[in-house]
Structure formats: structure tokens, C-alpha cells
């Protein structure tokens, strides 16, 4: 893909604008519904004449489906239909439709099953209990095939082939390179320092509070309505059209309230697909809700990775080159795994300047639960390896880790050669703040230390491998007769607060109060096209679209005021706090509500409609803007049991202009809890492809009693590409924490953790090893 990088420009400046709504603490606009039990999630949806669906799942990690006999199940009273792959067009689907080789998943497979828990058949019955009992009456004849579970085993020549025609089970490869890597290593070999390390990162699960859920209703006129817990109604609509051989316009996807996503819910899942297929068969609504166990074993997870990093630096700490090789455990299907493979490679260079960088990533199929996107999208794995290795190299050379990071950090207007260019960048300020904070803490005592990690993340991917080449967002603003504004967006609210952020941007731009905005989202019947909530794209991309739409509407409105007030040009006018006024003489003006009435009257009753749209053209290959941060974790370890106590997490954070401050704090704290879990608690151990902890007793997540104090220092920058200077704050904050925790342990106890999660047993074993070595 050729990339045109446009001219660099300086972007950091203080705007001196006093915002009315932006960066003010407001109630989330769906807050009332959520705190009173009124919010209706897909989990709660009940339609007239509705059936309940349950899914029969493969007990084998790899097997051919010889025959499925559902006759006994169909004969059971209360069972209305059974669906298998034969009831579907048999389309191999995937999220990245422009690359057919990555579309490898028939959700109800016709020939083979490739992981334990894969759907094989689905039943619709009048009660959930009958549907579940009916599953036991479906006879499936399998021809068991030899399975393979680890990527490094699956690439062997004699390994079983999981997808026909895919040699050595290598699903995707990615290569990123710039500069003369070998030359830089040669220089380091002469009088620099080179270090190489191998790491392993674990499987984490999104563990959304609302499991996968869908209610599909197919009617005799050939129309399908689907309520689902999703991050992108847009993608669901288009994907369903593809797999059901329907037109998008005959499919309506509704997701008013979604109980968490974190990257796991923007692909087509079995709840959505099977409920739609069953509804097509029965012409009745069908509801499928995954149990917590099903959610753990059969909804895609974070990509586990085998990481090799070789880094060269000068003895003074200047980074020279890095070589990275990664094998990811892709599991049975591609999902979003190709993107995670790519982004981990890119973010392993972040946030530093490298003379030479080379990354080779291999995503390998195995007979395990497929892996996909999860908050951070490959970057948390990259930071765990990169930031720890850098810390160890500083220790090896006796260099100050803050100084070394500062020396090599991205700065504004830096071009990552051929990949991306950085406009706003607060990395250096972040390092300064955390260094000062850490030093102010003084000596923390034995077995306790502060570990740090730098990080950064994209504000949405430029790429969209679904339909158009580039990502996009759009929005529509409608001003009503009473001045109330209907804001139609396609960005999806999944708890991160996008509805509120868009309302804030709209209100600020139009010059009205946030109470004046009604946000409509989560329904393809009226949502403008938008790729949805993933890759931290919405604040920047949907925000820009909303800003543009509101500006359009405002301009149309002001044309009437200009005509009324007989001014020089329309740009002499503005609206602020519902007051339409001459900028130079703010006392001259009229009430917004009055202007609206006159304008609409002037248009024969037509409402004022503004349209907005954003797509990142010519912004490199990855993202239009990047957040930056440095995070410090203060951790204490019990040296006898290895148990970790988290005292505090402090983050210096550059997300450009904060829009919704309560939302920002929420993202910081929520990301920290999830990333800490990634660091020391969460994993999905398997035995012969079977997940051993598919429940909340054995899969451990942080609770209120473990959560440490979290604080944030916001760094003041302004991103020209973002609405009002804003950048992402949803995913980036997940990236540094596991690395910072690892570095805290390194400084407290002196050893290097190369495997996630960092458990007490691993710490105790490392301590034993260290003692034995010292004894020798």
C-alpha cells in the first residue's frame, strides 16, 4: 500500500478557548436509564411469540462432521426447529471481507469442527429448558482428527492441517521494516550493546458482564430484525447480509444498550448467526444468550503470543535497531487476529525512534478457541516485552531508564519512516511527570518498588478492510422547532461513553447545552454509516463527523441570523450557551430558541439538517493520531508466598483535549483493572484444547478489594486532526500496565518475568532459582 504523507505541521499550542461543555463533568446521557434499571439490554429483550435457542457444541478439538441426526430432538414436544450448516448458504465469513483468504469461518460448519466448543447445531424451542434438553437428543457422528494446540507445533511440516490449503497452518504473515537494520546491529556489535529475549503472553478473555446475546426476528416479507450485544451494528448488518444471502436494507440491527465489548463483539458470533438462521426457519423471534461458560469457551479471546525481541543500543542509551519475531496462537479461525498481528508489530516500536526496525509476525492456526481483538489490540503484549527489555538493558548498562526513554522518545511531527507520522506528542512531558512522581515517593521499603512503562496507541485505524479501504464515520444533526437537537450517529455506545462524548461535541459546536441534545445510535434503521466501536476510533473519527454536522447545521441557522441582523459576513456570528451573538459585540444578539423558530418558519416548517463525515486520508498506514502515556505501578511482593499487593497506579497521559472528563477517568481506571488482570491474574489454561477455567470462580478478575488507587496527570497537548484537539483514551491505557508491573517486580526482587500472567508461584520459583544461583 503506498502512503502519501502530507506536509508536517506544528500542532501544539494552547487554544485559550474557554469551553462551555467540553471537559466539564456531566452525567452520562444514558446514566439515568442505567442507574434505575430501565436500560434494556439484548439480555432483557422479549418479543411476542418468541422462542429460545441453544447451541450444540463440538466436544472435539478437530474432527470431520460425518452426520447430524436431529430427528429425536425434533420429535420432542416444544422443539420447533433444529438448524445446522446445511440450513445456511455455507458462506465462509470473516470480518476482513476484502481479503477472502481471511474469511475462513462458517459459524455452523458443514465439514469440520476445529475447536472444542465450536457450534455444530442449534435448537429453537418454546422454553430454554426444553431447548437445552433437546441438545442431548441430537446425534452427531464425528470422525476425530489429530489436533494440534501450540503454534510452534502447528508450523511443523508433519503437523495436522487445520484449514485445507493453508500450508503449515500459517494463517497470516506480516512484515514491517524501515531503515538498515543489519547495518545498525553491526554497529552495535562493534561498540554498542545487544540483547535478545523470548517472552510468552497469555490468553485473556473480554469477560463482558453481558455475555453474547441476540434476538433475531425474521418475518414473511423477508425482513430480519436483530437485537444483539454488539460493538458495530453496521458490521453486523453487512455480515448478516453476506452469510444469509440477503440485502443489507432488509436487515435491521438494534443495540441500544450493550453490556461491554472490549473488542470481542464486533464480529459475527454464534448467538447472532444461529438465532437468525433459526428465525428464518421458524418465522418466529429466537433468543440466544450464552451462558458464562459458553462465553468463555466459544467467544474469541485475546491473542496469546510467543515473542522474540533483539534490540541494539549505543552504550549511551541511544536506540539503534530492533528485530522482532512473533508467533501468535491464532486458534481455529482468523477473526480479527490479522490486525492484532499487525498492530503488535507496529506498537512494539512504540513510542521510540529507531534507526532500523524489522518485524515479522506469523499467525498460526491451532485447534483452540480462536483469538481476536481485545482492548489494546496486540499492544499490551508488545509493551510487556519491549518495555521490560528496555528496563533490563538500562540496568545492564547502568543507565537511567527515564533518561534513556526520553532520549529516544517520539516527538511531535516525527515520521515513523514509511509508516505513520505523529502530529501531537506529549511523550517527553509524560516521562518528566512520572519521573518526578516516582522520585518523590522515595524509598518504599523491602520487596516493594515502582515500575514504569511508556506506551502509545492509535486513535482509530486508518484501515478498513471490510468494504472501503479507509475507515469512516458520519453523523446527522437535526434541529427541531423547540431548539432541541436530534443527533444521529453510527458510533456505538458500549459503556465507554460515546453517546455522551458526541453530545458534548455537538453541544459545544452548536453553542447549546448538553440537555438540548438527544442522541440516537445503535440502530441501523436510522444510524448513519459508521464502523463502530473498535480501535479507539470513535472520539476522533465520529467526533469529527459530529463536529462537521453541527457546524453545517449551525451555519444554516446563522445565515438566518445574519439576514436578520444585517452584518458584514456570517462569520461575524457565533452561538454560545444558547445565545446567538456578534462575536465582537456579544451583547448584540438573540436567543437561540427564537432564531430556530424563525429559521424553521422561513423554511416552511422544514427542520435544519446538518451532515458530517470523516475519513482519514493520507495519514499514513495506521492512524490519524496517537495517544501517549507513561504509567507507574507501585507493587509490593510477599517474598515467601509471591503474593502481589498493588499499592498505586499513576499515569501521565496525553490524549490531546479531554472531552468527557468523567469518561476519561473511567477509561483510565477500567483499563488499569483489566490490564492488571492481564498482568497477574487472568489466563485460560487448556488441556488438549479444553479450557479448564470457564467460570468466574476459576477465571480470576480484579475486585474492589484488589483495585489499587489510580491517579492521572493529564498532559496538555492539542491534536490538529482530532475534534477540538482530542485523541483516544480507551485502549492505550491498557497497554503499559503489565510491563510496569513486571518492571516493579524487577526492581523489587531483581528478576525478569518473561511469561504472563505473573503468578505467585512463578515469583516463588524465580526467588528459589535466584537463591540457588547466589549460593553457587
Amino acid at each position, binding site marked *: 500500500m503506498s502512503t502519501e504523507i502530507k506536509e508536517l505541521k506544528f500542532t501544539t499550542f494552547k487554544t485559550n478557548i474557554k469551553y462551555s461543555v467540553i471537559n466539564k*463533568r456531566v452525567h452520562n446521557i*444514558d446514566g439515568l436509564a442505567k442507574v*434505575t434499571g430501565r436500560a434494556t439490554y439484548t439480555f432483557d429483550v422479549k418479543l411476542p411469540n418468541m422462542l429460545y435457542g441453544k447451541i450444540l457444541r463440538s466436544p472435539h478439538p478437530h474432527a470431520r462432521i460425518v452426520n447430524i441426526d436431529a430427528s429425536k430432538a425434533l420429535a420432542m414436544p416444544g422443539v420447533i426447529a433444529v438448524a445446522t450448516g446445511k440450513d445456511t448458504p455455507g458462506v465462509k465469513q470473516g470480518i476482513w471481507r476484502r481479503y477472502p483468504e481471511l474469511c475462513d469461518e462458517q459459524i455452523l460448519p458443514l465439514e469440520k469442527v476445529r475447536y472444542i466448543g465450536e457450534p455444530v447445531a442449534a435448537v429453537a424451542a418454546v422454553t430454554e429448558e426444553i431447548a437445552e434438553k433437546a441438545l442431548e437428543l441430537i446425534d452427531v457422528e464425528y470422525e476425530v482428527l489429530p489436533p494440534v494446540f501450540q503454534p510452534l507445533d502447528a508450523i511443523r511440516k508433519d503437523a495436522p492441517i487445520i484449514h485445507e490449503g493453508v500450508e503449515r497452518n500459517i494463517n497470516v504473515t506480516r512484515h514491517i521494516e524501515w531503515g538498515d537494520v543489519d547495518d545498525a546491529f553491526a554497529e552495535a556489535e562493534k561498540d554498542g550493546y545487544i540483547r535478545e529475549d523470548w517472552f510468552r503472553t497469555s490468553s485473556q478473555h473480554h469477560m463482558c*458482564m453481558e455475555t453474547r446475546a441476540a434476538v433475531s426476528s425474521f418475518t414473511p416479507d423477508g425482513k430480519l430484525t436483530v437485537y444483539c450485544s454488539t460493538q458495530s451494528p453496521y458490521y453486523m448488518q453487512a455480515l448478516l447480509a453476506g452469510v444469509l444471502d440477503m440485502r443489507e436494507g432488509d436487515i435491521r440491527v438494534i443495540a441500544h444498550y450493550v453490556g461491554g465489548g472490549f473488542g470481542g463483539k464486533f464480529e459475527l458470533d454464534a448467538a447472532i448467526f444461529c438465532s437468525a438462521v433459526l428465525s428464518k426457519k421458524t418465522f418466529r423471534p429466537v433468543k440466544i444468550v450464552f451462558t458464562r461458560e459458553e462465553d468463555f469457551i466459544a467467544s474469541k479471546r485475546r491473542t496469546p503470543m510467543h515473542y522474540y525481541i533483539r534490540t541494539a543500543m549505543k552504550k549511551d542509551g541511544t536506540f539503534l535497531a530492533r528485530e522482532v519475531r512473533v508467533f501468535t496462537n491464532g486458534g481455529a479461525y482468523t477473526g480479527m487476529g490479522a490486525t492484532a498481528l499487525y498492530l503488535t508489530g507496529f506498537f512494539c516500536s512504540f513510542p521510540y525512534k529507531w534507526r532500523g526496525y524489522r518485524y515479522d509476525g506469523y499467525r498460526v492456526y491451532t485447534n483452540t478457541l480462536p483469538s481476536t481483538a481485545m482492548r489494546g489490540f496486540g499492544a499490551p503484549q508488545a509493551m510487556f516485552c519491549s518495555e521490560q527489555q528496555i528496563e533490563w538493558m538500562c540496568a545492564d548498562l547502568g543507565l537511567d531508564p527515564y533518561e534513556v526513554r526520553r532520549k529516544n522518545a517520539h516527538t511531535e511531527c516525527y515520521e515513523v519512516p514509511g509508516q505513520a507520522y505523529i502530529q501531537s506528542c506529549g511523550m517527553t512531558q509524560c516521562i518528566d511527570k512520572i519521573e518526578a512522581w516516582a522520585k518523590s515517593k522515595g524509598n518504599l521499603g523491602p520487596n516493594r518498588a515502582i515500575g514504569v512503562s511508556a506506551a502509545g496507541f492509535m486513535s482509530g485505524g486508518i484501515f478498513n478492510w471490510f468494504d472501503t479501504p479507509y475507515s469512516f464515520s458520519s453523523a446527522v444533526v437535526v434541529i427541531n422547532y423547540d431548539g432541541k437537537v436530534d443527533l444521529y450517529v453510527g458510533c456505538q455506545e458500549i459503556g465507554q461513553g460515546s453517546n455522551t462524548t458526541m453530545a458534548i461535541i455537538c453541544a459545544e459546536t452548536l453553542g447549546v447545552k448538553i440537555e438540548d441534545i438527544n442522541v440516537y445510535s445503535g440502530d441501523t434503521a436510522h444510524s448513519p454509516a459508521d464502523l463502530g466501536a473498535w480501535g479507539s476510533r470513535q472520539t476522533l473519527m465520529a467526533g469529527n463527523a459530529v463536529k462537521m454536522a453541527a457546524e453545517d447545521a449551525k451555519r444554516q441557522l446563522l445565515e438566518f441570523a445574519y439576514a436578520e441582523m444585517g452584518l458584514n459576513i456570517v462569520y461575524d456570528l457565533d452561538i454560545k450557551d444558547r445565545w446567538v451573538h456578534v462575536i465582537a459585540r456579544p451583547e448584540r444578539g438573540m436567543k437561540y430558541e427564537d432564531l430556530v423558530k424563525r429559521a424553521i418558519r422561513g423554511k416552511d416548517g422544514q427542520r435544519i439538517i446538518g451532515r458530517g463525515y470523516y475519513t482519514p486520508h493520507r495519514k499514513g498506514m495506521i492512524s490519524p493520531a496517537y495517544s501517549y502515556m507513561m504509567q507507574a505501578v507501585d507493587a509490593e511482593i510477599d517474598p515467601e508466598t509471591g503474593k502481589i499487593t498493588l499499592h498505586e497506579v499513576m499515569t501521565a497521559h496525553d490524549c490531546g483535549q479531554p472531552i468527557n472528563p468523567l469518561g476519561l477517568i473511567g477509561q483510565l481506571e477500567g483499563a488499569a483493572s483489566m490490564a492488571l488482570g492481564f498482568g497477574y491474574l487472568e489466563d485460560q489454561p487448556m488441556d488438549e484444547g479444553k479450557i479448564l477455567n470457564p467460570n*468466574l470462580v476459576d477465571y480470576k478478575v480484579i475486585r474492589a478489594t484488589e483495585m489499587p488507587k489510580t491517579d492521572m496527570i493529564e498532559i496538555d497537548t492539542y491534536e490538529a486532526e482530532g475534534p477540538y484537539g482530542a485523541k483516544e483514551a480507551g485502549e492505550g491505557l491498557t497497554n503499559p500496565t503489565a510491563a510496569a508491573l513486571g518492571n516493579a517486580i524487577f526492581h523489587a526482587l531483581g528478576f525478569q518475568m518473561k511469561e504472563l500472567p505473573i503468578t505467585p508461584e512463578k515469583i516463588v520459583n524465580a526467588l528459589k532459582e535466584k537463591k540457588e544461583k547466589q549460593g553457587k
Partner: protein
Amino acid sequence: MEKRLITLNVNGIDYELYINPKTLLVEAIRDHIGLTGTKRGCDTVSCGACTVMIDDMSVKSCSILAVQAEGKKITTVEGLEKNGELSPIQKAFLDNGSYQCGFCTPGMLMSASAFLKENEGKDVTEEEIREGIEGNICRCTGYNSIVRAIESVVKGNYKEG
């Protein structure tokens, strides 16, 4: 399959139900009475999304048979507001952004309400507040904003007028 006629008092109202005795309290509340504010997030009594109050004590309604709750005062999230006026803890949640996706929120509010009732007029530490919501998992917020909301109510910022 047998059924029993029971009366459940939920949010001050008596509901007559004719149910299979194996019906869980959460099923009675959600499916039979139709109050869907209370959620379910697991099958192992772990997540707390189903938390309601029985006689002002927090309990997990997924691990109580509906028949055992007869004769008791059951409160769900829908019962926290009175005539459109939100309770102090609900207001505090709004002011502190103590929710994101909102799925755990009803259960969290019930645990918080039970904690506040039990500790009315007392001084509480931050650690005690965290213990008070330890039985509720939140995947979105990282809990600290919830703790701040509860703290705020304890401090008396939402005196009911």
C-alpha cells in the same frame, strides 16, 4: 412437575406467582414479575449482577429459591427511586460516573444500598467500602468511581430533604 402458589413482596407490592419450586428468585423477579433491572452474569454465584435486597440485606438472587423468599421484603433496583426521585446512591453514581456499560450497575447499587443502610450514622473506611462491594464484579469501571460515590453518600452529600 409440581407448582406452588406463593406471594412475593417486591418493592412494597405483593405479587402472586404460580411457579415450579426450583424457580430461582432472579427468575421469578425477571421472568415472572417482569422486573428486568436485575441481571445475571454467571452460574457460580460469583459476579453479583443478580444482587437484590431481602429485608435490607444484600443477597444474590441467582442462588436463592423464590419459595424461600416468601414473607420477606424484597427490594430490587426499581425500588430505589420513589415517585421519580432518585435515591442518594443513584444520584451519587450519576455525579461520579460510577458506571459504564451499566450491566453490573443494578446489582452494584443494591450492594451499595445495603452497605449504606447497615452503616448509617457510622464512620466507614475506604477499605470497608471496598469490602462492601467485594461480591460484585465490574469489568468496566475499575471500581474506584463506585467507591467515591459511596463515600460521597456516607459523607452526607446527599441528605434526603
